[in-house]
């Protein structure tokens, strides 16, 4: 039963390798590759016999280990720079993963450690385009649209902010915000239009002048304003 329980814990091939390393009571670099590869294959077979989930990752690692094993058995394998490189890569990966596992254990046990300084921050106030007057205008506009909606059963159009944004840039420069919004045929279109205008303001493509006319931001003004 105990064996079965442990098998189920091998979520990935690296978990199995760490288990084998621990079982051998040696460091990964001290265990002969051939032994490690054989033991890995052994466990894999047992897992398959027990109908445990052997994912493709296990198979890939197994064949990689077998390749390393066969190369390690060749004469003068220690002079084969490619073999040494892939061996080192494999060791580093296992050691890294062991470190990560250790950190997980440490953090799990330290969860009740009290940190005494809490990070603080403030809510950021972003540039605004609204004022009381603007709000009022928008409310009225929306009211008009509501009435329109009630009178005519307008079919809802599919709108995207992106499309509306480019429409505004090509068609509505110089126009009054109020007029542009009033052209909406539904509350939904109104919202999308308004979001599109805010987005353009945020992106520094347009701005609203004193009379709520939509104006384009000049390119050179933009450059001197931005960081990076």
């Amino acid at each position: 039963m105990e064996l079965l329980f442990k098998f189920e814990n091998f979520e990935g091939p690296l978990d199995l390798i760490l288990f084998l390393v621990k079982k051998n009571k040696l460091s990964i670099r001290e265990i002969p590759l051939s032994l490690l590869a054989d033991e890995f294959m052994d466990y894999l077979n047992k897992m398959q016999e027990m109908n445990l989930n052997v994912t493709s990752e296990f198979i890939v690692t197994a064949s990689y280990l077998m390749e390393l094993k066969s190369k390690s058995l060749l004469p003068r394998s220690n002079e084969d720079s490619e073999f040494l490189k892939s061996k080192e890569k494999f060791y580093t990966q296992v050691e890294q993963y062991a470190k990560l596992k250790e950190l997980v254990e440490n953090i799990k046990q330290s969860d009740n450690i009290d940190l005494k300084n809490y990070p603080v921050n403030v809510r950021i106030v972003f540039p605004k385009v609204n004022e009381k007057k603007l709000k009022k205008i928008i409310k009225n506009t929306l009211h008009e649209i509501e009435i329109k909606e009630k009178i005519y059963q307008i079919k809802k159009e599919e709108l995207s902010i992106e499309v509306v944004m480019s429409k505004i840039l090509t068609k509505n420069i110089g126009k009054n915000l109020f007029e542009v919004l009033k052209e909406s045929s539904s509350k939904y279109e109104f919202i999308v239009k308004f979001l599109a205008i805010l987005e353009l303001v945020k992106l520094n493509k347009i701005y609203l002048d004193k009379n709520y006319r939509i104006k384009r931001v000049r390119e050179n003004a933009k450059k001197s304003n931005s960081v990076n």
Partner: protein
Amino acid sequence: MQKSQIALIEALIFASRGIKKQDLIKLANISETELDEIIDYLQNKYNNSEEHGIELRNVDGFLRFYSKETFSEILSKIVRKRSLNNLSDTQLEIVLLLATKKKLTKTEIDNIRGKDSYIILKQLLSSGVIKRYKKGRGYIYSLTDVFKDETMIEELVKNFGGAEFDIT
């Protein structure tokens, strides 16, 4: 007004990310008069000084520190804002619903939209735009804090009084 009390109130307001006066009175164990005095003192110190980049505000009964409006433009450069452009129309529809209504069940969303929202809710969940928690047999959906912070959607909707009307 003791220095240590001022410091405590300051720490409480900062760490709480928005706190009511009543809670401050209880936590700091002071009288309302004392608290009012400290709040006045802090607002005077931060809000009226050119040397401070932040200010103490009372918004809807919640005391909280905000960045000063003078710095809005430069701050918008360091805070990652998620663009609403990345959302599809139908995704945006649900996001706007949740921005105005705060919390909705799937049935409520379906009813308002007049069609099933299962797939879109799933997309929004996995991209971190909305979250949900179990209540009874179903789930309650709302926007995630991250999404709200990055898009400022609630402020956008509020900007045109959106919270006041129903999109239904």
